[in-house]
């Protein structure tokens, strides 16, 4: 085990997979010469050459669509979008091409591509700061992964690159610098669709993914000191989505809070709530609480952003309310 950052974990995963499989390529804006505006791809062009790692024009439709075209003809492209929000500029390529090209063509192709999407609010407004997992979770055909730790960042990215389905890989900008232990085994991978129980407990189920996980764990510690043992569940991927992990936990706790960095309406918490109403109604002794962005575009000014993005205080009070 070594302790490395989330950013290093992502770079390691790409490096190892590109070494392992010559059909893996990487392109996007500023990924080659500059090593990515977040420096995630630094050194990859030097290692793998300018055919397998190259800078693309500012052409998000072509970037994503070419990934689909490359994937159905034998490559395993990793494409980097500079910000997850730019998925909207290529939504047809994401939703109707990556997500459905296989199905509408009767399974004639596999689409082994990964779209790396730096997500998360960081004082840059709604065009550079969203976490749009929920948008694309509604679409059949896509895998959607949102690691919260360096180990998951590495293990899930390796799985995504090896997977034959298109994967949206959300890497939260505020997690890049966070450190954590990562196994040395070059074949260490983390399966998609398997939630991580970050902390076991029976008082309340707290679901959080991506940058919400560290916040959720702090809240759980604080409540532990107040005598409440929370179960913190990190789904890690919302497609495939480990529904049973959440259902089983709620059967035990009877209470659930979902913390996410999405707009509240039809955020991931909505699906969780509806699923529990379908499959665990009799176990629920308290109402659902969703801690999410209150349905306004993410403002840029720190004073405003802080107010709309879920933080420990808000997660804490939502849990407290249910526990009292």
């Amino acid at each position, binding site marked *: 085990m070594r302790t490395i950052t989330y950013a290093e974990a992502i770079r390691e995963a790409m490096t190892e997979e590109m070494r392992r499989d010559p059909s893996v390529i990487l392109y996007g804006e500023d990924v080659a010469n500059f090593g990515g505006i977040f420096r995630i791809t630094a050194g990859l062009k030097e290692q793998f050459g300018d055919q397998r790692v190259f800078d693309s024009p500012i*052409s998000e439709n*072509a970037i994503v*669509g070419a990934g689909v075209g*490359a994937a159905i003809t034998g*490559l395993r492209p990793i494409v980097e979008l500079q910000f997850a929000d730019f998925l909207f500029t290529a939504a047809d390529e994401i939703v*109707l091409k990556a997500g459905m*090209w296989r199905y509408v063509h*009767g399974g004639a192709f596999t689409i082994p591509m990964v779209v790396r999407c730096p997500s998360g609010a960081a004082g840059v407004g709604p065009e550079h700061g969203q976490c749009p997992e929920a948008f694309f979770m509604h679409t059949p*055909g896509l895998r959607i992964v949102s690691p919260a730790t360096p180990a998951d960042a590495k293990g899930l990215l390796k799985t995504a690159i090896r997977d034959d389905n298109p994967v949206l890989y959300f890497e939260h900008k505020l997690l890049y610098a966070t450190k954590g232990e990562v196994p040395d085994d070059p074949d260490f991978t983390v399966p998609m669709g398997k939630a991580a129980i970050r902390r076991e407990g029976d008082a309340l189920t707290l679901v959080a993914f991506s940058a919400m996980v560290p916040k959720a764990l702090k809240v759980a510690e604080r409540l532990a000191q107040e005598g409440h043992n929370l179960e913190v569940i990190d789904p890690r991927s919302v497609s495939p989505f480990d529904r049973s992990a959440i259902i089983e936990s709620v059967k035990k706790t009877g209470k659930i809070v979902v913390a996410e960095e999405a707009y509240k309406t039809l955020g991931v918490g909505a699906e969780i709530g509806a699923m529990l109403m379908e499959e665990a109604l009799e176990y629920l002794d308290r109402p659902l609480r969703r801690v999410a962005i209150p349905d306004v575009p993410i403002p840029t000014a720190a004073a405003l952003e802080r107010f709309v993005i879920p933080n420990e205080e808000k997660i804490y009070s939502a849990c407290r309310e249910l526990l009292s």
Partner: protein
Amino acid sequence: MDTKVRLEIYRKMVLSRRLEERIAELIKSGQAGGFMHPGVGQEALQVAAIEALRPEDYLMYAHRGVAYWVARGVSLGKILCDLAGKEGGTNRGRGGVMHVVAPELGILGESGTLGGCFPIATGAGLSIKVKNEDRVVLCFFGDGTSNRGTFHESLNLCAVRKLPVVFLCENNGWAVSVPTETSTANPDIADRAKGYNIPGVIVDGNEVEQVYEAVSQARARARRGEGPTLIEGKTYRLWGHWIGDPDNYRAREEVEKHWRRDPIVVFERKLLSDGLIDDAKRDQISAQAKAEIDRAVSYMQSQPFPNPESALEGVYV
């Protein structure tokens, strides 16, 4: 141009035309549904261009008719099954005729959203370049489709990375009810090539030889690693936009004028005057087409509709 090739092109043009005539009957008699956009009038452009390819090349066809598939050798029965939403086709009723596919023939499928073809073709070109393979991509699209932003992004990306993609615009003067001049500031689509530093070539899309020659040269250029070419074939859609289109937005005279340049008739005259076919041969080709289509129709009729539950299969690997 090689005689065998010319005859093969003629045969496939006739076969495509007869097949679309039969499809029109099937749809009108309710034996098939689906969004069918007939290609009647554009067969020379479609068939000649595809004949200029090699078996290993990739094809992104457009939504305009069956000739692409016929030229590339997809079995007619499969095409009809896709049209009728039956098993026995190429996509098990998933995508219908809008998504006929044949990876073994290099046919990569279709994007139902126009312009989705450009980035996909670009990606196929990227594969060829990265894997250093000896093949190219031929990407068909309509004049109207050329106004999607994906056209611009893809031509630039292909040009700057010198990807082996041949872009072939079927400029038939109309996008549904909208004439090219109404929607397109410069109706010569090929003039856009300068913006990407690539060759832009205009050919008479109803002239088999011109099309075959232009695509052959573009293919050779792509193989030399010099990148994409933008070819524009001027042609005309002789039928409505889709089967059932009232087609009340075009002057009858305009349509009739173009019927006189029906590419099949034009090419047939040439072959006759060059002595490559005679009336007997022509009738034989047309009879063979009819027989082949009859077989395809009964194959289609013999096929079952897909099992409803199968709709749930194959979203993910």
